[in-house]
């Protein structure tokens, strides 16, 4: 499965080498498409490619690190 997500970092976790750890600990291919850090908040557009279960475990791990993970299709739900 290839998942496209936005990761939002806060000032607490913005300095951590999270994408490096992700690639080291999970058998996934990561591809950064866009990244921006401003005013203590970071935003990264990331492609994560791998076996479905591994990608899902990687997402859970990211969330456990305090990273907000949002599918590229953000706000699918509307009013």
């Amino acid at each position, binding site marked *: 499965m290839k998942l*496209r997500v936005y990761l939002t970092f806060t000032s607490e976790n913005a300095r951590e080498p999270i994408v490096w750890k992700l690639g080291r600990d999970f058998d996934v291919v990561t591809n950064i498409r866009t990244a921006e850090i*401003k005013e203590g908040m970071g935003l990264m557009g990331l492609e994560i490619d791998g076996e479905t279960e591994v990608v899902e475990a990687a997402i859970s791990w990211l969330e456990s690190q305090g990273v907000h993970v949002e599918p590229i299709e*953000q706000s*699918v739900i509307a009013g």
Partner: protein
Amino acid sequence: MSGSIVRALKCRECGQEYKIAPTHVCEFCFGPLEVAYDYDKLEGKFTRELIESRPQTMWRYRELLPIDGEPTVGVQVGFTPLVRAHNLEKALGVSELYIKNDSVCYPTLSFKDRVVSVALSKAVEFGFETVACASTGNLAGSVSANAAAAGLKSYVFIPHDLEQGKVLSAAIYGTKLVGIKGTYDDVNRLCSEIAGKYDWAFVNVNVRPFYAEGSKSFAYEIMEQLGWQAPKHVVVPMASGSLCTKIDKAIKEFTRFGLVENAGTSIYGAQATGCSPITRSVKEGTDLIHPVRPDTIAKSLAIGNPADGYYANKVILDSGGWSEDVSDDEIVAAMRLLAETEGIFTETAGGVTLGCAKKLIEAGRIPRDESIVVSVTGNGLKTLEAIEGRVDAPSLIGPSLAEFDDLVKADKA
């Protein structure tokens, strides 16, 4: 005349262009795609006379809507009243105020019928037989109804704890209604996975670029109804922020074609305090939108991580406008004010818009002596629970004239 002037889907971030297809994200940078037109092809052909010769629906502006042929869904949508609000002018102490009243938009009483009719007409052109959306209210009803009328199958996803009224008013159209047990984020994630897996036209996902263009008709109508003039000030409710950006696009298009003169229109955003990520970004002077967890009675505007927030922020500031937010009490007060002065019953989103307009006027952000349009985008019958216990209960009397006389005396006192 046909001859579509739609050129491509264009990335709003890197400018990369894509062939027209049911897709919405740039392959290079993940930026959102927007419909781009070859306006030059329409030079001299898109005139007031041509538009006025057509039926009074949103499709009278069809050259600037992204479908190739005749519309097949929502053919009757649009051309809602623009009301000169004399009583409200007095109440607010302003000289020229209008309500654009989409609380009576056909067929499901919100401006969502505009976006849905474009999305579904385009879905039919693409050859889809099933359409879908995830929604907390107005979009659900509009997709269900318009799909039914067009003979399309539809799936509508809702959070499992939605109010009865909203559930029933989508279910009645025979849509496949799916309640999802989970948080708002869970619903979002599941639906984006569903949208990726099933070959459906997901109005707010893969056909979003086309869907969003439908909002422009709201502003085209305002300008025509003002006698081919752009207003000086427009106040717009924001959830994802899409409507706000499309009002700006519509005014620029009409100005480009000489249909209206450049009035230097300022655009003002309106949100509920309990879900105001875009307003907060404007007030704090940043273009970063910090996601929030919504907590407000204005459920139709309760999007904590607005997809078009960044662009709405830009439109507001570039146009010389501002953004405001109002509490739940202020929302209800504004709903009452509109009903009592103009006889228009709007839903909570309309209360947000008028409430913010009032605050912006009082703060001197909107001048009292220039034309102001307040965008009323939904109907009060859909959010009755918001006013329950907040308006006067009926006076109870026996079936006796004497008791009624007493009541009248008490009223006079």
